[in-house]
């Protein structure tokens, strides 16, 4: 699933490890989400949205092919 996580993270001047610490996940998980290789659970998606103060739909882009 496409997402804007990398873009939002850089806007907030966070590195992957810092974001991972804030969300309680590993740096590898952040890397996988940013590359679109891993889709987070709904709970993690909500946590990500809360960190960036946005809606889930503003961060994760759902396509019919997903």
């Amino acid at each position, binding site marked *: 699933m496409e997402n804007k996580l990398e873009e939002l993270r850089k806007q907030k001047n966070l590195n992957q490890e810092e974001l991972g*610490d804030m969300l*309680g*996940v*590993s740096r*590898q998980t952040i890397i996988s989400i940013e590359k679109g290789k*891993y889709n987070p*659970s709904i709970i993690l998606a909500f946590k990500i949205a809360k960190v960036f103060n946005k809606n889930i739909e503003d961060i994760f882009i759902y396509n019919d092919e997903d």
Partner: protein
Amino acid sequence: MDENKNKKEMSTKDMLKKIILKSAIIMLVGVIAEVINIFTIKNAYFDGFASTLIVLGIVMFIKHFRIIKSERLLKKYTIARQDERNISISTKAGYITFYFATFVEAILSIVFQIREYYLVSNVLSLVCCGSLILYLILYFTFRHRD
């Protein structure tokens, strides 16, 4: 969020203390088994089993003791333990291993039966069928519960 993190690290510390205690018990059981082996049983297989327990206990003890003493390692360990992707990968690896192992056990059971190694074949059949029965029980239990 910081309060939640502290709570999680505390519960991880409690879990680590239990693991350290268990590793000490494993080491002790290994030492007792080794002493029994030296003075009574005198069997190489039992000696290997006892040595394995001692080494396992020592490795577990040192690993988890280092983690509990270092804030940096404790934080990394807490995150790694609860990381959803790690859990997903571990679960996936587990069920692929289960299917593969069950298939191999079934094939080997037939091979050993043909080769007239009946005891080995029967044990493998038992393990294979036991695994499948346990899987079915757990599947229907979780399906009913969740």
